[in-house]
Structure formats: C-alpha cells, structure tokens
C-alpha cells in the first residue's frame, strides 16, 4: 500500500509561499498588467477586478477592446516611438562597440603585461561606479559645456566655441563610455587571463610574430568574454536613465526619456505601456543573447588550464598602455573633481577656475535638504531589511531545498529596466484596493525588487559554502528547521549577507530612475533632490549633495569589502 504524501504545512513552507506571493503581487502582476494596458490603451485594475465585480466587468469591457493600435507608432517609420527605439538602439550599440574598443587595450594591459600601478588603476576604476550617471552627466556639463573649464582651456589655446556639444547624442555616448567601462573591464581581464597560454606559445614556436599571435590566437580565444561584456554594456546603456534625462536635447528621442515623459508629463498610459513592453523585450533579448555567449564560453575554456602566464614586458608596449590607461581613467577622475570643485565654488563659469570658494552649499543642503538625507536613510534602511529577509530565505530555498521556481522568479528583475519597473508599479497600484502609488512602501518594494537578483547571488554563494550536515546537526540536537536556520545558518551567513546588504543600501542611495518616477514629494530621497536642483538650476547645491552621496557610497563600499574579507571561518 502506498502512503499518500502528506502536505507539511510548517513555518518554512508558509514563508516560501509568502515570498512567492510577494513576487507575484509586486513583479509578475504589474508586468502582466502593463502588457494588458499596452493592448487596451487604458489603465487596467487587476487587483480591483479580484475584489469588486464592478471593476471586474469594466476590466472585461476594456479587454474586449484590445488592439494593436498603440504599437503602430513603434513599428511605423517616422512615428515618435519608432524614432525613440531606433535612437536608443543606436546609442546602445555605439556605446557597446566604443566601450569594447576603449577597454580592450586596458584589459590586455591588466591581464597580460607588466604594467605598473595596477592597484592604483584598479582603485581609479571604482570612481565611475560610485557616481550616479546623472551626476556624471552634470560633471560633463561642468567640463565641456559652454562655460565649462575644459572649454575655457580650449578657448585660451585659441579654439573657437566648444570642443563638442555636450547636450547631444555624442555627449551621452561619451559619458556612458567613460562611466560604464568598468562593467566591461573586469570580465575582459578574466577572459584574457583564462585563454590557454600554451596555444600562444605553440603559435610563437611555429614562427609567428607577437602581433600576429595576438590577433590570430590571443584575441580569438578571449572573444566569447569580450562579446559577452559588450552585450552587457548594451543592456546597461539601453536602460540607463540618468544620462539621457540630463543630456538629451529636446529633439533627441530616446526610449527611456520618452517613456518617462509619457507617464510623468502626460499620464499617457497607453504610450508608456507600449514603450515599457518594448524596453523589456529588447533588454530580455540581449540578456538572453549574453547568457547564450557565456554558455559557449564555459564550454570553450575547459581546455584552458589556469597555467602561469608569461607577462608581456616589452618596454614600448607597456609604457604606451600605461599612458593610455591613465588617460582613460583621468576622465572620470576629473569629472568627480569638477563636481567637488563646483560644490565649494561661489560661482564658476567665468574662468577655468571658480571665482571663489565657500562651504555655504554644504550648509544649505544640511539645513534645507536635511529631510532628503533622512528620507534616503529611511528608504535605504527599509529596503535593506526587506532585501535581507527575502534574499536570505530565497537563497535558503534555492540552495537547500532545490526550489528552482524561486530562483527563476527572483532573477526576472535582471531584465527589467528601472523605468519599466517603475511604470509597471505605478500603473498597477494606482487605485484601490491596493493604492500604494505615492507611498514610501511602494518605493521600498521597488528598490528591493530591483536589487534582488544581485543580493540573492551574494547570499547564495555564502550559503553554498555551508555544508548541509551543519544544519542536520542542529536538527538532530532538537532544533526545528526554522530554529536551525535562525541560530546556525543565519550567523554563518551574516558576513556575506551584511556585505550584500550594504551594497543594497548603496544602490538605493544611487538609484535614479525609480526614485524620480515613484518618490512622492514628502519622501524625496537625496538623488531626487540632486535631480530637482539640477532642473531648477541650483547647480552648486546639487553638486554638494552629489558629493555627499559619493562619500556615503565610497565609505559603505569600503565597509562591505572589509566585511567580506574579514570572514572569520
């Protein structure tokens, strides 16, 4: 006789379903809802349909009017959405190609040469990562704008007008190239390190010259890694909101800006929904493409044993690469310097240097924008708590209980651009029964979901390091699974979780797109304050606040790094 499998309803099972419910309510339903809206052209209230029969019938009515009308503007040449999509694709492609070209020599220098100052350069590489892109964009205005200090230098050297127009496609491309290159650098360094050095030696042994070996052996071997990081840059550039919102001129349509304007300016649900769906599809497609390439790469490197590689120490090559690397890293460094100088300037723009120096702007932000700082801290702390709880238990279910479903659901945010998530959430929670738009709670949930895949990956790797028998030992000593998780697994995971949590805090403080879309005025965080100050023309206070953000980010990142290094066991 077969025993019927009994359904065990203990604390852990309940938790698992609660987490599923969270993702269902705040991720899957909003995305589905925005898909419906893109066809109906009118807001759809899914949760309302479940609770009220009146809403339900009106929803059915809307659904019966589904059409592809709204998509016409996307596919029709000359339509504004079509332009926006094409421009965004052009931008992302250009940035991806340029970044690859710019980074290729640097990656080679890091991986394969005796370039000096490698740790120093690696430290400089973190500068682009601590600056939110809209602040970097403003830095470029401070440098290359009509009254920028680089422009002043250029004119004093006899140049006419400006070096280039910052408020243009070119400006956006340059900012993204100089601030996204670290995302591509480290994967490429790894790709160069991994390629099989014996193949290169074989090539040289057969009489090939060094440059020939590089072009025909080294480069092709590193190719999967290079292509994969190129695709990553494409996705990052495509979904970036901070740069275009500051630098895009009126006549340049980009899909993220267009979507933002439709929702924030005109409350055009249909338009923003269509743009969101298009954004999602593009991001998902390139994410899938990148996965595909990485898969091939894993297959290809099986033969590449991590043998000790001979580093290129050719004097000419090394010094050329060193100078080049320094020049590339100099740009973001100068950009950060410009923001700092602006934050302590009385006025700046008449000459290459500020007219005078003052700490007045810092006083201003602490007196008039203290509320924003406080908001940021509360929102970041809330996100941190929610992320830690969800990520810890999701990792637990995935690693220990083999829950593939949760793994899958929690990685969906990877392909959802911030603006798209924001629009989906606003639409879904705009009316009763779950009227959350404009509340701090929805903002926290949005931040949490956005950061979730990264947080889960970091907790999951520390979870995998804990052997299963440790948990079983606790159970055999009388602890329930939940109690074992709290008293044994929890403390063992703490360093990994803490480091991940700090990085969540950091992203919330940096986050732009979601803050700008979702934050109500009385919950405006620091990033939104900077953004609004920039729009209002209060550049100096914006810079002071930006510096504050950068300092907080640097301090917290250093702390996270220390935590992961100090793992006790």
């Amino acid at each position: 006789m077969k025993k019927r499998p009994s359904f065990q309803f203990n604390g852990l099972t309940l938790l698992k379903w609660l987490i599923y419910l969270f993702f269902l309510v705040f991720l899957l339903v909003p995305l589905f809802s925005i898909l419906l809206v893109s066809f109906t052209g009118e807001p759809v209230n899914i949760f309302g349909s479940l609770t009220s029969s009146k809403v339900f019938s009106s929803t059915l009515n809307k659904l019966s009017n589904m059409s592809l009308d709204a998509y016409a503007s996307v596919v029709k040449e000359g339509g504004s959405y079509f332009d926006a999509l094409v421009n965004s694709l052009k931008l992302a492609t250009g940035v991806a190609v340029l970044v690859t070209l710019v980074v290729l020599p640097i990656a080679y220098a890091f991986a394969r040469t005796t370039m000096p100052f490698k740790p120093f350069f690696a430290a400089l590489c973190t500068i682009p990562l601590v600056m939110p892109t809209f602040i970097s964009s403003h830095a470029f205005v401070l440098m290359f704008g009509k009254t920028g200090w680089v422009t002043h230098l250029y004119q004093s050297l006899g140049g006419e007008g400006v070096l280039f127009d910052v408020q243009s496609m070119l400006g956006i491309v340059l900012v993204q190239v100089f601030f996204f290159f670290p995302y591509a650098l480290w994967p490429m360094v790894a790709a160069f390190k991994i390629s099989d050095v014996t193949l290169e030696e074989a090539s040289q042994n057969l009489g090939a010259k060094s440059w020939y070996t590089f072009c025909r052996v080294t480069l092709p071997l590193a190719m999967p890694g290079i292509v994969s990081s190129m695709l990553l840059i494409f996705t990052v550039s495509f979904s970036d909101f901070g740069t275009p919102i500051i630098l895009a001129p009126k006549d340049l349509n980009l899909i993220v800006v267009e979507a933002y304007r439709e929702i924030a300016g005109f409350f055009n649900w249909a338009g923003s929904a269509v743009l969101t769906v298009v954004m999602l599809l593009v991001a998902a497609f390139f994410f899938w493409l990148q996965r595909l390439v990485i898969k091939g790469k894993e297959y290809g490197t099986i033969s590449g044993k991590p043998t000790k590689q001979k580093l290129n120490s050719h004097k000419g090559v090394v010094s050329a690469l060193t100078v080049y690397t320094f020049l590339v890293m100099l740009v973001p460094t100068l950009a950060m310097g410009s923001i700092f100088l602006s934050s302590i300037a009385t006025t700046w723009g008449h000459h290459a240097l500020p007219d005078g120096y003052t700490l007045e702007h810092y006083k201003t932000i602490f007196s008039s924008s203290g509320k924003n700082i406080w908001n940021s801290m509360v929102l970041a702390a809330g996100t941190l708590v929610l992320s830690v709880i969800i990520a810890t238990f999701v990792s637990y279910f995935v690693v220990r209980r083999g829950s593939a479903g949760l793994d899958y659901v929690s990685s969906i945010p990877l392909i959802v651009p911030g603006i798209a998530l924001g629009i989906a959430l606003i639409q879904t929670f705009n009316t009763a029964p779950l009227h959350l738009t404009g509340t701090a709670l929805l903002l926290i949930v949005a931040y949490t979901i956005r950061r979730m895949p990264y947080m889960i990956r970091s907790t999951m790797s520390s979870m995998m390091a804990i052997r299963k028998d440790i948990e079983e030992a606790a159970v055999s000593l009388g602890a329930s699974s939940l109690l074992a998780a709290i008293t044994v697994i929890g403390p063992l995971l703490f360093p990994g979780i803490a480091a991940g949590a700090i990085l969540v805090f950091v992203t919330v403080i940096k986050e732009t797109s979601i803050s700008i879309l979702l934050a109500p005025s009385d919950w405006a965080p620091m990033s939104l304050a900077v953004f609004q100050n920039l729009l209002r023309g209060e550049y100096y206070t914006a810079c002071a606040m930006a510096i504050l953000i950068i300092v907080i980010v640097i301090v917290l990142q250093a702390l996270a790094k220390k935590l992961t290094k100090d793992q006790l066991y």
Partner: protein
Amino acid sequence: MGSVRIEHLSKVFNGNTALEDVNLEIREGEFFALLGPSGCGKTTTMRCIAGFETPTSGNIFIGDRLVNDVPANQRNCGMVFQSYALFPHLTVFENVAYGLNIRRFYQGGLGTKLATIAHMLNRRLGKVDRVTEQKVRDALDFVELGQLADRLPSELSGGQQQRVALARALVMEPAVLLMDEPLSNLDKKLRNVMRVTIRRIQQKVGITTIFVTHDQEEAMSMADRVAVMQKGRLVQVDTPTALYSNPVSTFVADFVGSSNILKGAAKEVNESGETVIQLAGNQQLRSAFPAKQKDVEVMIRPESIRLFAGEAPANESNILDGTIELSTYLGPTIRYDVKVGELRFEVDTVFEAGSPILPSGTPVKLQIDPNRVVVL
C-alpha cells in the same frame, strides 16, 4: 527505552531502490555496526533512523515508540557526523551547549525563549543557566576536553573535533547514538586511538549505539554485533566472531577478511558426519558443515590452514601437497601463495624471530581442520 526496531524498511530514490525490506532489531545498550561497501544502503538506513530520510515503506521503532511520523528534531537521536559538523562560529563550550539551549528554548516561557535566542545569536547577551553550564562542563570533562572549552573548532585537531562532536551528542542523553563513518577523517594512528576511546565511552555510558562504516576491521573490533549490507539488503547480522568464522555468503566472507573460496561438489557424508567435497584437480576436502545442494563453494581463512615444510602429523584429515609460489613478509605474519595441483591457496603463518621464510619452490604440506572448511 534505547532499543531500535526496523520492520520491512524500504527506500526508493527517484526510482532507484536504496533499501529493500530491511529488518533489524538492535538491543538496548548494544554497540551495533552497519557494514558494507559504498552505496549498500547503510547510511540511508541510519538517516532513516535519524529522521533525515522518510522511508518509502516500513516501520521504525525507537524503544516502543513508532517514530515514522516523528520529525528528526524530536526523535531523541544523538548524531555524530562523518565531518563532525561542528558549528564553526561557536566555541567548543557553545557547541556542546547548543542542544541544551534549544531544549530550554522549547520548554521555557516567552521570556526564556527570547533570552535563549538572544544568547545563542550573540554570546555577550545573557548567560547559560547553571544546570546547562554544569552539564556541558561534565560532558567536556568526560571526553577530556575541559581545558579547550573556549576554543573555536578550527583551532582543534581532528581527534579533538571528533570528541567535541561526541560530547555534543551525548550531553543530550539521547535514546540512541548514531555515528556516520566516525573514524574515516582521521589518520591511521589516531583512528586506532579513537576506536578504543569511542568503545570505552560507549561502555561507560551504556548507550545504544549504531555506527556506519565501510571498514570491516573497524566494525569487527568495535561492535557487539555487525549487520553486513549489500545492494540495499541485509545479508547477515551476527557477532563479529560468528561473522568471521561462519559467513553466509562469498560476499560476506570476502568482505570481512581475506579468504580462500573454492568451487566444488558435495559427494557424500562420511561415517563421522563430515561432508566430503570434490574440488577441481581431483582434490578432496572434508567439512564439518552440511551441504544444502550439490554445487557448493567452500571458504577457508588463510590463517586456519597449517603449513608444514616437512611431514604433516599423521592421523589428521585434509592434507594437501603443494608448492610455494610466492612468499610475502607482512610483519607479524607471512603470507604464502601455495599451488596445489590446479588450486591456489593463501596461507598465513605466524612469523617467529629466527625461523626462516620459506622460499618459492619449496614443497609443502597443507592441513585444514574440517571445522574450518565452511560450506557457503
């Protein structure tokens, strides 16, 4: 309370049968070994007893209590893991106190619960109560680790970690102690020491102990009784001596010690009640064991064969003529590979200082007591 009874236990993992109709009765206070090669189901059996695996069918009793539906944390089974599974973030003292704290958590009121959890999460918050403190100290003294109470597991040697794991399980006064390959992570010398230590502790406490091992020497030297398993089934459950001298199958004979196994045919039962067995090459052997069918296998342990360089004593049966093919010196014994017609025998003799090791090619006589010729 400490007996364990297993009835018709089966376990199927995704269509693969890991255990098939296992029946076992382990007596109170017994030191019981589950022995077998890897994949034979011994660990699965133990994990079913501990509650980490749910049987596909069958019943498990601990004492008189049917524990099939009792969760692992309420079975009162102490467990020592192969890798010891000490909590790396807790000191030796806290490791041993863990189970007592958990018990206190479940038994106490809300205040006690909160205080206990707080203390378990951060040792600076609160203290363990005096009873717990005393119990832990006693347990640590018992395994002679009292002075290492404040160390972290990573600061201990393998043998010390093993004893902490033992103390951690024993302090709970479990009904049954389960040990999964307890000695496999230790080097050979330490293994011999721990073998004695574990046996001594077990006898002192008198706790029913089940331990899993793939090492027949370990099982034979430590256990009161041994269950040999093969492909998810129990093959033989017996005392070590019975297992060794009277194995039920070639598998058991081969698995517990080395043996000569020969194919033959039972011919007749002679006047003194012995079975006469016809071997290949027209050789005959008499055995004190009855044959169940005509085609049989006989098993003779290498050390039960007597070897004579000259004449064998008269009026003894089972005398064979052979030639030494290879002699191997093994320290306390000498292993001779002897060719008898078409047959080959392994013979172990005690090495005595002064007496020579016979070279290859020496003609010898072998004599085997019919009581030692086991018909399988």
